């Protein structure tokens, strides 16, 4: 594209001006269109999730910070309950906000998905504590420790795997970006050299 053509293009584009105020309103509307608007039923659904999250937060919180029972004095158990109660706070916050505002913001969407997955996992582990652990604790305290250790091992593995995948994903983007930046500079340099040669 030579200079004359560039000027022509610019002059042509200037013939159709989009004033800044209207442009800003338009951009605002685009942002709003990218957010997911919730129907009445979905809002009720999110309100229910927030309600569940709130009660879970209280239950997990009381186990994490309350007086320990005979087998609840295990550090591993209390650590899990702390983790679960913090996850519940985040989940309650996101789902509650979605229910109140009636909108899921584009930036909030991955957080809602992530906290929901974490909560699903926490419920599974909590079920184990309610139904499996009390039975086995009567039999052997060593077995209980092994079981809790395994649960934690699984939880930490999952978190570790997700973290590694996230790091790899970001690393791939970063290296790709760096390569493109170098490629861009080389193309820029080649263009300048060509321009010099021609002049």
């Amino acid at each position, binding site marked *: *594209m030579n200079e*004359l*053509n*560039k000027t*022509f*293009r610019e*002059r*042509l*584009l200037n*013939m*159709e001006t*989009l004033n800044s105020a*209207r*442009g800003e309103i*338009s*951009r605002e*509307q*685009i942002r709003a*269109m*990218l957010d997911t608007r919730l129907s009445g039923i979905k809002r009720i659904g999110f309100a229910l999730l927030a309600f569940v999250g709130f009660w879970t937060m209280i239950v997990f919180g009381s186990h994490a910070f309350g007086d320990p029972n005979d087998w609840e004095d295990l550090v591993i158990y209390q650590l899990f309950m702390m983790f679960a109660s913090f996850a519940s706070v985040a989940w309650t916050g996101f789902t509650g906000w979605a229910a109140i505002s009636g909108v899921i913001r584009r*930036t909030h969407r991955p957080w809602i998905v992530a906290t929901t997955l974490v909560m699903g996992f926490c419920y599974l582990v909590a079920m184990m504590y309610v139904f499996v652990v009390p039975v086995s604790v009567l039999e052997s305290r060593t077995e209980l420790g092994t079981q809790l250790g395994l649960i934690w091992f699984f939880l930490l593995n999952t978190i570790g795997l997700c973290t590694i995948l996230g790091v790899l994903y*970001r690393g791939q*983007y970063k290296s*790709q*970006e760096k390569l*493109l*930046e170098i*490629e*861009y500079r080389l*193309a*820029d340099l*080649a*263009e300048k050299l060509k321009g010099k040669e021609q002049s």
Partner: protein
Amino acid sequence: MTEKEAIACELLVLRCRQGRKEALEEMVRTWERPLFYYIRRLIDDEDEALHVLQQTWVCVLQGLRTLREPRKLPAWLYGIARKTALSHLRARYSERSLFREEQATRDSEDGDVHLSVDRVEEIHYGLSRISLVQREVLTLFFLQDLSLEEIASVLEIPLGTVKSRLHHAKRALKAVLKQEESSHE
């Protein structure tokens, strides 16, 4: 498009895919005006054109992850803008009426196809006087963001058809400009 511009497009797409706000804003800032110009050539009403532009951006931002060739970003953007504008227009006009309009203009034109780029203002207003099909191909040509092959892919027609449409469009525009000149004299 030069190699450098193509790399810049890929870089921009990559940054947008990472969800970087400044990259998204840069994309909107860079392409808002040409896309709006193109859409305005397809849709007469300014408010409707603005609405189509908004819908185009929503489609673009939602589909950015599926873009296979980031270096062909301009063609992809114009393609989405075109599809959005056409689906908007389809509600108003039938394809047949658009085609008739094109034929009528094609049959009536004559003369030199060379257009002076100094007459930007006249060309801009002249574009609104030629048929939609011709206006569309000529606008893409004038905006200079796409090669003829890319224009063919945006319009979903063969390269030969693009060339012939372009030729007829230039003749039509030239005739309109001549007509304007003679009416002023």
